[in-house]
């Protein structure tokens, strides 16, 4: 299956682009996606098991199962507001 990935802020700067597509095996989880990102960009994140991910605009944990066509997003620590 194929999932779409979006990178923001610090992560966007580290990978040098806004988006990517990943081809993953069936039954892949968010954790598997994080592994694929780390493989493509070894400097992506010093603490991959802590990386915050949203799927279809909802925060999920790394056990969350992915499905074909999902929009995933890598969310560095947020700092909006004042």
């Amino acid at each position: 299956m194929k999932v779409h990935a979006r990178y923001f802020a610090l992560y966007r700067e580290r990978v040098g682009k806004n988006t990517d597509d990943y081809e993953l095996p069936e039954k892949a989880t968010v954790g598997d996606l994080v592994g694929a990102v780390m493989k493509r960009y070894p400097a992506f994140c010093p603490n991959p098991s802590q990386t915050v991910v949203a799927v279809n605009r909802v925060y999920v944990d790394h056990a969350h199962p992915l499905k074909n066509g999902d929009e995933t997003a890598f969310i560095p620590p947020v700092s909006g507001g004042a």
Partner: protein
Amino acid sequence: MLIKITRDMITAEPVIKSLVIKEHGAVTTFMGTVRLHNEGRTVDYLDYEAYPEMAEEQMRAIAEEVKKKPQVEDVSIVHRIGKLKVGETSLIVAVASKHRREGFDACLYAVERIKELVPIWKKEVWNEGAEWVRSKGA
């Protein structure tokens, strides 16, 4: 309830006017403005980036959550993104409530939830560099 992310300057009046009020009593408003100094550095400007679709959904969810609190009538949240200079306003939260204390509590709580949950990031730019700011949390 007004929920908006915008690149334009934001002011309090339209946010306050957006509140739908049946019972009146109190309107509490919070505005976050860009500080000149942060951790000993003199800030040149801030650059806010958002995951806009998700940020709006999160802001709406926070407003709905706060609106359910006792005495709270309505909640509006507007966040500006892009380049902001010192003194410009990044965030406005307005809460209509029947009594004042609940309004203050609800407004402060909304600001803290926004800082915790909404996918918006700020990069601080000063004369010798730039850095993504990590929120100190609620």
